[in-house]
């Protein structure tokens, strides 16, 4: 039930944003967000509301960390 879909903001009007991912468009209410959102940002959509902004730089860092080849040094 807590599934949330990351979608990209393509336009904003007041508290409503139009978002899109892979060609699917969906309206999202922004009233629950405490972060500034602009066109191009990714947000997590749950039940018609944006519940969080997605930090794209952080996403890329996480991916890089996951792809790190296994070496004895990163055994922690």
């Amino acid at each position, binding site marked *: *039930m807590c599934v949330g879909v990351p979608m990209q903001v393509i336009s904003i009007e007041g508290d409503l944003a139009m978002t899109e991912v892979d060609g699917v468009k969906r309206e999202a209410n922004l009233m629950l967000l405490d972060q500034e959102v602009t066109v191009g940002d990714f947000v997590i959509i*749950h*039940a018609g*509301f944006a519940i*969080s902004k997605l930090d794209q730089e952080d996403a890329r860092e996480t991916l890089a960390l996951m*792809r790190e080849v296994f070496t004895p040094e990163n055994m*922690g």
Partner: protein
Amino acid sequence: MNYLDQFRDKEVVKGLAQRISSLTKGISKPLTFMEVCGTHTMAIYQYGLRSLLPPEVRLISGPGCPVCVTPNGYLDRAIALCRLPDLIITTFGDMLRVPGSSSSLMEERAKGADIRIVYSPLDAVQIAVKNPGKRVVFLGVGFETTAPTIAGSILTAKAQGLSNYFVLASHKTMPQPMAILSADPELSVDGYICPAHVSAIIGADAYRSLCQEYRVPCVVTGFEPTDVMQGVEMLVRQALSGESKVEIQYSRVVRWEGNAKAQAILAEVFTPFDADWRGIGTLPGSGLRIAEPYLAYDAELAIEVAVEELKEHQGCLCGEILKGKVAPFDCPLFGKSCTTESPVGACMVSSEGTCAAAYKYAR
């Protein structure tokens, strides 16, 4: 396609599994980690993550499916409401097939009750706008991810001056049940895969006291398969080094402090109460009910109805399964009298239930 699809990259999943295998090779006692979110349960089964992990790492499912932990009495009230004239029940799809004491919303709909599945509680508000002569009740079930959206629908209904929109609220909150499970001597959990989107709202700081009190590692983890594997790797590293701290794997979405605005809206519209969890019992302050200024929207208070006497389902082990004590395959009903086509217990009904996930992906 977008770059976020890389979080489902099979090669990365396998690479992380290898890292976990190397880290845990030859450890004396297997590590048991519990996921407390139904969406994690689904991801783990759907992507076959258990089969990629070494025998030294065991994943068990906890009480993270909101539909599954909703007690029968709630369903019975919803069913009683749907039998009233000029009343429309609106709900997320998951609730439809959950058996109450003697019926389900699905059965009632077949008999003619007006029950509509909506994608958003705002859709339910729209139904109320379009049907001024009818009462529209939304079934408010879910954790902190969902509860703010329902609070948002109540605020929207208020702003629009609607008097025919109601919520039958049965929201639950984290992490209270995790503390109960940690205190249970029969369960030995070496770490928690903490929920992703619940934590986007409540923040990772919410797990600190649990983590300190029970000395149990907590990693807030995303829902994609690579996220789950990386979360497990982080838990393994903590467990092996004897650490117990809160970490955020899902840092692209979750912050330590959470979403302050959603928290404020929750606090405005709801108030904590001692909620009943199926299989676990009553936990102090673990639920949300509608707060004083918004009682006019509370279906339980605003709409009088006689509810049938509570009847539990015999032989169903949902309660033990929700605590991670019993696996679905250990239940005598599993796959026999209880299937996804004809479910007996809530864990089989909800698409996120542990039994439903096991039935669909792991038989």
